[in-house]
């Protein structure tokens, strides 16, 4: 269970409060207008932004003091998710061990992860030789190998077309099911939230609202969501 306990994030001209819990294994879209603090919230959970006050807990243990790499978290950024000068295989090896060791056991697991994500045979390529969709798959393959309990997605598929994006979301669901991960995915597209088939957390007007089942939320949107969707 992810718990944000009276968490406050502050930057000049920006403030976001969050006091909520997300059950283990949930898939939750983070929806809201740009500038509301969706990315900042994910970066705080991942350890790249220090909270002003409050606590971040995973399964009851505080993780807010851990360096990013030691949190129970895998995060995919909007871009720069792969080292461009390393092969896909090397990039994936970094998900298996932080010293980048690449032995036979690691190779076998990487081959398997590549097959699972539809990248069989592409381990020797560099990210620049892959399409945008394939790069997303490679990043998800590494998430599969890391198998951290929390998977944070900061719009990594924003640059993809609708069909590719749907494919990626299906793969996210598959990876999450396989690893049992709890997913938080930033998006500004209500369609993405629906495709995730889970919960939606609205981030607007300085507050991260507690997650609600997506369909129920859209069926009876609160004023802040109506304003965002333009249906109010």
């Amino acid at each position, binding site marked *: 269970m992810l718990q944000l306990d009276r968490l406050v994030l502050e930057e000049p001209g920006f403030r976001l409060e969050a006091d909520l819990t997300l059950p283990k294994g949930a898939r939750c879209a983070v929806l809201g207008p740009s500038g509301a603090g969706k990315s900042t919230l994910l970066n705080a959970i991942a350890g790249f932004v220090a909270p002003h006050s409050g606590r971040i807990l995973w399964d009851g243990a505080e993780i807010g003091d851990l360096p990013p790499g030691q949190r129970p978290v895998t995060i995919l950024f909007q871009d720069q998710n792969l080292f461009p000068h390393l092969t896909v295989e090397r990039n994936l090896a970094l998900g298996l061990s932080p010293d*980048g060791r690449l032995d036979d056991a690691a190779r076998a697991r990487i081959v398997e992860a590549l097959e699972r994500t539809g990248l069989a045979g592409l381990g020797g390529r560099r990210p620049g030789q892959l399409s945008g969709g394939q790069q997303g798959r490679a990043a998800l393959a590494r998430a599969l190998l890391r198998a951290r309990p929390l998977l944070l997605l900061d719009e990594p598929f924003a640059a993809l077309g609708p069909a590719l994006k749907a494919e990626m979301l299906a793969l996210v669901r598959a990876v999450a099911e396989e690893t049992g991960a709890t997913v938080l995915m930033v998006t500004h597209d209500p369609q993405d939230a629906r495709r995730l088939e889970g919960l939606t957390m609205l981030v607007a007007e300085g507050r991260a609202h507690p997650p609600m089942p997506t369909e129920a939320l859209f069926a009876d949107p609160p004023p802040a969501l109506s304003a965002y969707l333009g249906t109010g």
Partner: protein
Amino acid sequence: MAGRIGTLRPPVGAALVAALLGAMTLGTVAVVALHAGAAMPGAADWAAVRFTVTQAALSAVISGLLAVPVARALARRRFAGRGALITLMGAPFLLPVIVAVLGLLAIFGRAGVMNDGLAALGLPRLSIYGLHGVVLAHVFLNLPLATRMLLLGWQAIPAERFRLAQSLDLTPGAQFRHLEAPMLQATLPGAMLTVFTICLASFAVALTLGGGPAATTVELAIYQALRFDFAPGRAATLAMLQFALCLTALALGWSLIRDTGFGTGLGRRVEMPAPGGWRKGMDVAAITLAAGFLMLPLGALVIRGLTGMDDLPGGMWAATLRSVLVALATTVLVTGAALVLALAAGRRAAGHRLFDAAATLPLAASSLVIGTGLFLALRGVASPSAMALPVTIAVNATLALPYAYRLLLPEARALHQGHDRLAQALGLTRWARFRLVTLPCLARPLGFGAGITAALSMGDLGVITLFAAENNATLPLFIHGLMGSYRMEAAAAAALILMGISFALFALFDGIGRHASA
């Protein structure tokens, strides 16, 4: 404020390097200052100051003004060998000064090509020694640098401006007034000030082509005071004068003298109209004369050196080995120190402004001032001769560091911005991060910086003159000794070997960097 977490790691290594640099630059000056009160500057010392400023100003103005037509021609003309010529313009920076001097002597010296020509015409021979010789050598060494800096300026003019000028049908004169003159106003002072600063602290040229009451620079006077008069007090006073000169130049141009314009893509041709007629003739003349001025002395040196090859004096190979070891040790020190500083500055670690200042300070330092400080501080500890090579390595490393650092800094910044987040998210170990991310991404500027450092250190003829004895001379000092005993052909042959090793070291490290680059 929701601060970035990753910047909190204290930069211990960078602080240590910055402290060492501070000790080598400001610390040695403090030692000098303690000893300087003993002797007030005399008439000869003030004459040295006047000569130093005069030759540096003349060298700067002549280099700057000659660079304008050359850079302009290179900017707007396209011809076979243009790229090679621009690359060649980078070479004098790596060329050991004593090699350049021997090349100039082969053309303009007493037995040089020019004087032979004058004699054949029944005219008196001209002497290269004195003010005009010093200025000639400085222009030879710095005209390419000034040209490259101005060429950068021309390339920085947006292509749209030239297109606009063409669509308005501006005459070449009007185009010069409206586009090129403002650019020159912005870049020419910086180029001249850079050359001025380099020439203020130039020692080897004055040592070989200057001398005597009328042509002694402050650096040369320091050397004479320590080496011949054994007057440490007077040397300290002179060193304070030299420091004041350098400090003034640095204060004038702290922001101007940093960018020496290598490493950037100079190959691109400026999208600038290339007018025909007499203007084309002027451009051809500028390029031909500049290329001739730069290549003929080295060509003459090669011919003279090849004839001297069968008469290589004993002791030369030992001196060569010492020089190579000094160059390699300097390169290791500089590459490590520059990397540590650039990584700390690149991630904006605490104190990064101080690190940046520490890495810039040596640009205003002079070999002989640092040498005097070390000489005074260490004279009770060991004999000068025993310290010669370690001191030379330390001083060479200090003086070469700014170049290696400036090459790394932009790349280190890009590396941090591009990959720091991901490396942290994956929790990479320090070693894995260094081996898999830092090294492959920085290999190219690291190799290039190491190459420059190795070449500069290989050819250095500065502080070694204060400390070395006959039995532990480096190759440049050994060549200077040959010149002193008028064995010019042997000197030319040894200079040829020195030049070959300097360029080979540069090519080696630069090649390693390119090869290892991601």
